[in-house]
């Protein structure tokens, strides 16, 4: 069942900024990751999903309802954690929690207490003098107190210390176990890596990649780097297996060869290597970060394509 849907959504803020014709669907029980640098369009998309803004073109829907006009109908089922936390004025922590509790019509105090304990939130403080981390933890409690079936998280761990980051990630994993639908927007690879099922990479308002996390982690496609004992040994190997269909030689550097191979053919490579002299064998793991950088590398070489206003 589709919980969150974005269909040919466009919002143009001018100067090339905005979101252009993006579409994706998030199913029940999925954790969907939005990955991209600042200004790519992550927050814009989220803003529209929450009904804060109206799309120029296309649709943003939650639980099948158009968001700009129906936000009040599904808000009680959503937990939203904004990217920058600004708390309403003049309240103590406790009063803030009470206010959100009333606004969200939450009846279950026990769950709120559980969240406060889990995230080490001390309700007696004043919101004015809180550190960023404390504010974020408070916002986490506010977001989840209604035990929402849909979580929308915008850079949720920024400002949290390492320990709390881990607590949070564990919490998300648990929510996932409970069948919640989660949209996580971030530029911290480790947290996306740790939690997401599917990941979408956004660049300049467009989706440039969408894939399953497992594809990356447990990719059946592997890259190995082999260091041969001598250049001759390398040439021998190369001549023998250049044309092989079982694996591909991607690159050569001194007496190193970079090989791309699918797991099903690994035995073939093992046998091949057993016949030659090589000094070392290591795997080049592609991390999420590496994968991500691929989409940005070209632009970095050309001096960066992210728009910013010159003074």
């Amino acid at each position, binding site marked *: 069942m589709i919980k969150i849907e974005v269909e040919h959504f466009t919002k143009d803020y001018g100067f090339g900024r905005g979101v252009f014709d993006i579409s994706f669907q998030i199913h029940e029980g999925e954790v969907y990751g939005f990955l991209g*640098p*600042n200004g790519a369009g992550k927050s814009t998309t989220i803003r529209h999903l929450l009904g804060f803004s109206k799309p120029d073109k296309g649709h943003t829907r939650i639980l099948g309802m158009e968001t700009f006009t129906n936000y009040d109908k599904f808000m009680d089922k959503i937990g939203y954690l904004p990217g920058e936390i600004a708390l309403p004025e003049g309240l103590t922590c406790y009063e803030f929690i009470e206010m959100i509790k009333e606004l969200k019509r939450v009846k279950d105090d026990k769950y709120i207490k559980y969240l406060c304990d889990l995230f080490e939130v001390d309700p007696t403080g004043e919101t004015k003098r809180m550190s960023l981390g404390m504010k974020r933890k408070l916002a986490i409690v506010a977001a989840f107190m209604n035990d929402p079936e849909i979580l929308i998280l915008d850079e949720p761990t*920024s400002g949290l*210390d*390492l*320990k709390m980051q881990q607590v949070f990630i564990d919490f998300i994993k648990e929510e996932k176990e409970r069948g919640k639908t989660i949209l996580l927007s971030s*530029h911290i*690879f480790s947290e996306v890596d740790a939690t997401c099922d599917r990941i979408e990479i956004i660049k300049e308002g467009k989706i440039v990649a969408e894939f399953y996390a497992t594809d990356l982690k447990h990719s*059946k496609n*592997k890259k190995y780097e082999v260091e041969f004992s001598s250049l001759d040994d390398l040439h021998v190997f190369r001549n023998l297996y250049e044309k092989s269909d079982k694996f591909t030689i991607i690159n050569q550097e001194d007496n190193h060869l970079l090989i791309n191979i699918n*797991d099903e053919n*690994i*035995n073939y490579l*093992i*046998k091949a*290597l*057993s016949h030659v*002299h*090589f*000094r*070392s*064998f*290591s*795997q080049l*793991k592609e991390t999420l*970060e590496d994968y*991500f*950088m691929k989409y*940005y590398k070209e632009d*970095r070489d050309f001096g*960066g394509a*992210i728009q*910013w*206003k*010159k*003074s």
Partner: protein
Amino acid sequence: MEKVIEIKDVTKDFGNGRGIFDIDLSIYKGEMLGFIGPNGAGKTTTIRTIMGFIKPDKGSITVKGMDAWKDSARIKQFVGYVPGEIGFPDYKSGTDFLKAIAEFKGVKDLSYANYLIEKLQLDPSANLKRMSKGMKQKTAIVASLLADNDIIILDEPTTGLDPLMRVSFLDIIKAEKAKGKTIFMSSHVYEELEKTCDRVALINNGRIVDVVKLDDIKNRKVTDFKIEFTNRDDYLNFKRLNYQIIRDQETYNQVTITIEKDRIKMLFNDLTNYQVKFIAEIKYTLERHFNELIRRGEVI
């Protein structure tokens, strides 16, 4: 090699077990030393003693032979510093602030500053108070580097930067290192230190746990491989060979072994007799190194 920064036997006790205790650390000329540890471990405190912001209860810190506390003002003249928490003095815009820093440090030529501004994609004309965290961070970075000081001290400099800017920043630092600068950088992101540092110090609970040379980490003589077999027999038979097995997952017919790199050929020779499903290398990283140390409670 010349010691640029020398921390000898330094202790600063804040009570309740918080603080830094018996810190010994030396940073050599032209070296980049990384500093890593969990939050509250003492990284910022250590850096503050070097900068002369706090006075140690005991021990001494010298920078280029000068006492960090007594000669703190002089020392600041040739140190570029990015603090852990950015709080700017009362200037209107980033440009005003950077110009003031340049003037304070006697820098007339702002071309390097402009280069940095370009590379970090910073718009410094923005109002200081209204800058986002990332922009503030970038401004602080430019401020710390524009004077082309010999010594650069950075306290978690990449917080608030998105991944692209982080890469740009690391490029900048690598370039600085290539110029022969002495750099001391703290972080809680292992990869950053791995990519840039010569040595890394691990601090935990206010004490230095270990100082490693990155070369040693990267060029370890041993490595780990996770091997999964397609059938149980192969799995069991392989296990009987005398490889050092550090993890065994029977359900998946998987073993993880530690092996010296020069014995890999031998491993491959053995593996030709089995049906391997996949072979993956579990790299030894800085993070793994330190986690093990912390887990084992080892202190040097």
